[in-house]
């Protein structure tokens, strides 16, 4: 049994993710950000049409290509020794410290403590009628799943087939797919946890929502 509280403490000790930004291709590097601690913003706009903060540019064959921040955060390291130098593809240029948001913390905890049952192929997934009624009436946590239990209907190209659950026994804590939407192969369909841990997980999630301070 995973200790949920220790997972949270672990995240609290390092409440960020460090993203190393590497040169996507060869070229001469010019850093647009000159010192550490500078805040960088992620792409924004309803369609993410506004690019993130310009961190550096790489010139290859007189073609200046910008390197924008893909996530928000703080510049933790700059390899200024590469400034004005020709670098190979994959050379580390900067490290961006991305502070986790509440949702990201919750997702990280759930990823660690839940058993994720993933889609075996790209298709539309539905709960079987008996489960669907329970989910609609009492929420997903009203459903207890057991290995081998027929749980889903897989619908693809107008053909439908049943899909049995495979994993530890427990209740469905989270549902990750939408009705009538295609789910890619390997994407999580449901997250399952032992029944006795539900309260604990919920408690931690609530604590994250109330106490976690977002720094981005």
């Amino acid at each position, binding site marked *: 049994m995973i200790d949920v509280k220790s997972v949270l403490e672990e995240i609290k000790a390092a409440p960020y993710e460090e993203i190393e930004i590497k040169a996507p291709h060869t070229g001469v590097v010019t850093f647009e950000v000159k010192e550490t601690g500078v805040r960088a913003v992620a792409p924004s706009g309803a*369609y993410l*049409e506004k690019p993130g903060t310009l961190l550096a540019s790489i010139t290859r*064959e007189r*073609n200046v290509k910008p390197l924008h921040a893909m996530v928000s955060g703080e510049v933790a390291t700059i390899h200024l020794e590469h400034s004005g130098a020709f670098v190979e593809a994959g050379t580390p240029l900067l490290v961006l410290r991305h502070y986790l948001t509440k949702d990201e913390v919750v997702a990280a905890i759930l990823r660690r403590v839940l058993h994720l049952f993933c889609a075996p192929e790209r298709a539309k997934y539905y709960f079987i009628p008996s489960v669907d009624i329970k989910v609609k009436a009492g929420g997903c946590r009203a459903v207890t799943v057991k290995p081998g239990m027929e749980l889903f209907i897989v619908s693809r190209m107008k053909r439908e087939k049943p899909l049995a659950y495979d994993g530890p026994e427990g209740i469905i804590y989270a549902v990750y797919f939408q009705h009538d939407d295609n789910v890619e192969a390997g994407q999580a369909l449901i997250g399952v946890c032992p029944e006795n841990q539900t309260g604990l997980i919920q408690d931690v999630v609530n604590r994250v929502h109330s106490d976690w301070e977002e720094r981005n």
Partner: protein
Amino acid sequence: MDTEKRIAELSERLGYIRDIFGSRENANITLLTSKLHEFGEREPLASPQEAARLVQQLEDLFVFLEKKLDAELSAMDVVRIVRHPHRVSLKDILENVYDNYTEIGGQDEYSIDPGMLIARAYITRRRGDKVHHQPVMVIGQEKGHGQEFRNGGSVKPWGNAKALQYMKVAETEKIPIHTFVSTPGAFPVEDYPGAAQQIARNLYEMAGLKVPVVSVISEGGSGGAEAIGLSDARLMFSHGYYSVISPEGAAAIEAGTRQGQRVPPELITACAERLKMTARDNLSMGYVDRIIQEPHLGARPYHYDFFKTLRQEIIRATDQVFLSIAGMKFFRAMALGRHKDVSPADAENMYVRWTVDEAAAERLLWRRYRKYRCMAENAFVDSRSPTKRLYANVQGVVWSGYSFLRYDFLGKQEKRLSKALGEVEGELRVVVDKMSGSLRKMTRRSGPAVCDAEKSRMLTELSQPELGACLEDWGWSYISPRAREDRAVTCPNMKQSGCPDLWAPDLFGDFAGVCSHCGHHFPMEYQWYLHNVFDPDSLHEFNAEIEAGNPLDYPGFVDKLEEAKKKTGRKSSCLTYESRIDGKKIVVAVLIAPFRGGTVGAAEGEKFIRALARARKRHYPFLAYVHGTAGIRIQESLNGLIQMPRVTMAVRRYIEAGGLYLVLYDTNSYAGPVASFLGCSPYQFAIRSSNIGFAGPGVIKETTGIDIPPNYHNAYQALTRGHVQGIWDRREVRKNLKNALLTIGGRNLYYR
């Protein structure tokens, strides 16, 4: 009680005055405020008679000072009057000007577009003892005194479509149309039928409406106003405005501000003056025929005398249009002459039948065309010498004469003869086929068909690279100067499509600016098309001397124009040519983006019209190649805006004469030109990766609050919405144009 009511009315009038004058300090307003305040203090102590006397004094003071304030109104104050929720709206006009009406297709918010109001109404007139109900179709934007669902009179494309539908109904019923323009501009969404395309459709159809149209302008906001504004008589409220852009929009462009940034109010006020948008300005420029005088500080719903004046003016204008096309009109036309000061009662008592027969309809269309053709004639610079002008006029007459002889007179005989010959040939062919049938069968039986051995080998063997079969000759006559740069270029679709970098000499040379991986079309110079699409050495430019000017003396614009002329070596953004494609002669008008963003002003409109006239006279097909256009040139204000109906009418005249009008969009094409003379073509094509629309993303966000996706104006989206009829690869433009010339449009083309 009466005193309280009168004081409340005065307070409301004072509030209205404050709204109109904004934050400006004014001694008269201060005086009115203090007097009203003073009365408030004295009233409890005064007797009722004394209070009534004081109120009367106060009312007189209001009337006196309102008159004084009216004389001080600036253009921006007029804009505030027009936008004020107390301003008269179309419903007030329907209630007070017409004798009866039925609203069509809408009841408050239950309408396809509550911003567009349509009604069948009638005006009752007496002729002796007889009473005549003269029906009209009333169409106009309704602001509804601030009702939110009316969207401030900003009409959506489907609202304009509804207006067009009922214009056609009026034409079927042969009744005149009265349009009331009261819009800040069209609602800039591309959803079908599309803001630009629907306005273009409206303009095209209105150019040919066979019933008189009288328009009254209160708030004439750019393209939205033009959607119902093309008319035979154009009246304007004295406190209205009519402009190509709002003062705020012009100021934002002037200041170069970005989305969300504020423009200084002084600049907005200055722009309102520069745009020459008031009724007086428009009358002096000839874009309206008559001003309807409003009460001081603008008409409000309780100004009943104003409605009486409006009724007389509308009747008079409608009468004048009908008389101008009537067979017998001598005395009545004299009585209603344009420059005569006719008393309102005289205008209403005189009876003019509001009917149109076929001959009158033809006269009406011709007069409408002439009316608009004569507008903005002094708003451009024609630097041709008098001899050249004379030569051009004589040439035009000769072409017209030749056209008549060749295509109308002899052409008809030729057609008749060739039809008869065709019939005879058809008959003979049947007889000959029957007789030779048996002979052919015998010939076939005599031996097997022999195939040429060399031909057979060529058709069946693989290509031989050593003979050059795989060496492609790109054959471009013009190579972009960017092809000389030794550098790599990144495709904008690199992230989605994984395109590799391209070497500029390859991309802008051999590949004609097309990404070899995803097919993205990089913008190319307009010269690329001129030299690679048309037959070599076939371009002959005409009317190059017509120059863009600064008709409104817009401050600083002369320098900008000079800069554009110097940069491009051209005198306007419209270039007109006679050329050939695969031997087929064609007239081409090109809107070039490097010259002030390809904006259209009076010079560009004039060149376009003259090119259309040339194509019509010579029976040539016409291609409008839009290298790029940002819209109407705002510094020319109405001189530019009027090109929308003006050129559209010329396009209609050309198409109706049997021509083929093709439009080809490249790079970015937006606003006025797309919403008029380009968007009205039945054959519009786009170069891949081009953008077509009414308003750019920034304007859409600003006016509607909607965040649009980045590919909103993309040519493929335009094709999906039905705004263009096809998308062409740049490298295949010549081939596709050749094909188009042979397969579509035009019964009166010289090569048909």
